């Protein structure tokens, strides 16, 4: 693998490892955070609703109590004596001392004239005919007013009801300090960053909010006054702060009770958790990234080392295959060497016999001796050729580039197996292309491939058959084709995929290493070519070696 190949692999390993570790981490983190956030928010919301509801009922009870108290008072008061200040004061003082006492008490006739007044303010001889609260009281029977300053110029709430005595109608009016309302409402807003207040339909504050306004001022909550009856909880962004507000209508839908909380302050634990999580997250990411880079670096280093070792091993395998082929050849060639040796030994033996016997004196014996010596020379030459051929093949495995005549190379290779083929009655047919160009390649390695293929072909045929070696040339692609066709049993389809695998063999144990084709495949690829196989069970096989005339490497 080249340097660029390693770089690409390194990038892929890093990216996929990061992807596989960071994506689940992010998903987990975001899911947990959003669930945590949602549950916390709903807790805040529930708290707010609960508080609002308790306050609402407190408010309603308070108003009912005030009206009821006034009603009781009106039944006790004798209209004929109300103009008597002492009498009215006496009545007023009787009800004082109860919680949420009235500030003052007055009696007004149906024309709006104040007939009597008891209280700290100097409010005699005033007419309320035009006052909003008076008109409302007259039309509805009783009324609790908005907070307003009135004649006394101090914010207060009027509670009034119409009393009847016979056919005479008069109005009993009491006022309450708006602080009472403040006190009731304020409690609802107790707690961190919370606030509670009341606004009327025109969004005017009826109680003093903790921040952002005062009683009687128009608030910024106009939007809220549009909400229909019932309880509502939602986010209300008034100030820069993000607020969550719960609202409900009270006092016959005239007032809106608002309880609001600063969401950011309420959710502070969540944000604190988020911060801690973010820190841990960042540390985690840093560790993952560093870990990934480190692991990848180690992996790549090991890979490079493994590749290097594999390259060495490949060379060793090619060498061992060559040695195995050599061993096999040596066994076959022992016969070829031993035959000439036998002849030489016998000739020498014969000459000894003659010398020990009658002696060498006759012309006839001299001629016989001459013939024997010639034979000895001939057979020595024969044995020499065999051993030289073997030596030529046993050369090293260093790749060479030389100009190789493919035909010569095939012929030399055939020599190794020709006697074997002869004994087995296998015909070797050469179908050579006349003007096959010479090839730039490594002859030793190419010969090893040819020998493997021929040896396999001989083994496939076993006996009585034919092996054809055909050479062709494709000038367009600059490729030389060498096809080895045998008339053997062929290769079953199920084995066809596996024949180039290392250690795959169909030969008997001890007969083949299972490396021949695998190594041949490797050699041919290294030489820039390829090996293909065509075979049908029962119809022989054809192995075709394709090598470029000019090897690019």
């Amino acid at each position, binding site marked *: 693998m080249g340097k660029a190949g390693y770089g690409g692999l390194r990038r892929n390993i890093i990216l996929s490892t990061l992807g596989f570790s960071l994506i689940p981490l992010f998903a987990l983190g975001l899911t947990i955070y959003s669930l945590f956030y949602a549950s916390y928010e709903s807790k805040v919301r529930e708290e707010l609703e609960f508080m609002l509801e308790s306050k609402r009922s407190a408010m309603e009870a308070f108003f009912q109590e005030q009206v009821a108290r006034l009603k009781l008072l009106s039944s006790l008061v004798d209209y004929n004596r109300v103009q008597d200040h002492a009498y009215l004061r006496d009545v007023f003082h009787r009800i004082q001392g109860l919680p949420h006492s009235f500030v003052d008490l007055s009696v007004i006739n149906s024309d709006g004239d104040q007939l009597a007044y008891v209280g700290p303010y100097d409010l005699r001889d005033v007419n309320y005919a035009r006052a909003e609260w008076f008109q409302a009281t007259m039309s509805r029977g009783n009324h609790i007013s908005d907070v307003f300053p009135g004649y006394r110029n101090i914010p207060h709430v009027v509670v009034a009801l119409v009393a009847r005595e016979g056919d005479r109608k008069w109005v009993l009016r009491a006022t309450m300090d708006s602080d009472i309302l403040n006190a009731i409402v304020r409690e609802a807003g107790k707690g961190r960053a919370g606030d509670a207040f009341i606004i009327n339909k025109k969004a005017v504050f009826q109680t003093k909010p903790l921040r952002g306004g005062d009683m009687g001022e128009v608030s910024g909550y106009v939007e809220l006054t549009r909400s229909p009856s019932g309880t509502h909880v939602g986010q209300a962004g008034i100030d820069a702060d993000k607020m969550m507000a719960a609202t409900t209508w009270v006092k016959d839908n005239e007032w809106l009770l608002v309880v609001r909380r600063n969401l950011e302050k309420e959710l502070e634990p969540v944000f604190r958790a988020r911060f801690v999580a973010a820190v841990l997250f960042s540390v985690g990411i840093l560790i993952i990234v560093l870990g990934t880079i480190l692991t990848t670096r180690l992996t790549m280093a090991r890979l490079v080392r493994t590749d290097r070792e594999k390259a060495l091993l490949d060379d060793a395998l090619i060498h061992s295959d060559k040695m195995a082929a050599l061993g096999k050849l*040596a*066994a076959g060639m*022992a*016969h*070829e060497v*031993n*035959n000439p*040796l*036998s*002849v*030489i*030994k*016998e*000739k020498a*033996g*014969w000459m000894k*016999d003659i010398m020990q*016997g009658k002696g060498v004196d006759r012309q006839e014996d001299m001629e016989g001796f001459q013939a*024997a010596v010639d*034979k000895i020379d001939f*057979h020595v030459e024969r044995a020499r050729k065999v051993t030289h051929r073997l030596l030529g093949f046993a050369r090293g495995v260093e790749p060479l580039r030389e100009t190789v005549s493919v035909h010569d190379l095939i012929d030399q290779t055939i020599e190794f197996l020709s006697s074997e083929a*002869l*004994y087995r*009655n296998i015909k070797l047919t050469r179908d050579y292309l006349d003007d096959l160009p010479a090839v730039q390649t490594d002859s030793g390695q190419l010969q090893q491939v040819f020998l493997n293929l021929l040896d396999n072909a001989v083994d496939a045929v076993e006996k009585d058959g034919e092996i054809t070696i055909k050479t062709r040339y494709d000038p367009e692609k600059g490729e030389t084709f060498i096809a080895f066709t045998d008339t053997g049993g062929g290769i079953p389809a199920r084995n066809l995929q596996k024949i180039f695998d290392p250690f795959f063999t169909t030969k008997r144990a001890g007969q083949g290493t299972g490396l021949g084709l695998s190594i041949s495949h490797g050699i041919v690829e290294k030489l820039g070519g390829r090996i293909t196989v065509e075979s049908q069970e029962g119809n022989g096989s054809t192995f075709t070696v394709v090598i470029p005339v000019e090897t690019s490497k």
Partner: protein
Amino acid sequence: MMSKFRVLMVDDEPDFLETVVDRLKMRGLDVEGVESGEKALEVLDQNPVDVVILDVKMPGMDGVMTLREIKKRWPLTEVIMLTGHASVESGIEGMKLGAHDYIMKPADLDELMDKMKKAYEVKAMHEEKIGRASVQS
């Protein structure tokens, strides 16, 4: 003194065959040489021999096939395999098929003579046993 016995030598290498046959004849043996398994069977057909020296590797009918045929048709004939192989495998294979012994090329002539004599003795013993058995029955 040993009685004279007939030997048939089978080898596809003419120079070798010719010389060995010559030298064995010089030593007074009744030897004939042929170049192939097929010819060996023809000779045996006409004139049975006592001991056959048989080369293992030959084109056409090889040594092992020839041995099989000989043992089938002339079971009493003793065969010595002559192998050029460095390995002893083919010699052993021959012995499994009934060969008396094997000898490696290049062979020593005296060793070959020894083995032939032993093979002939075995053959003679077998024939004697068979002769006695047939007389008794």
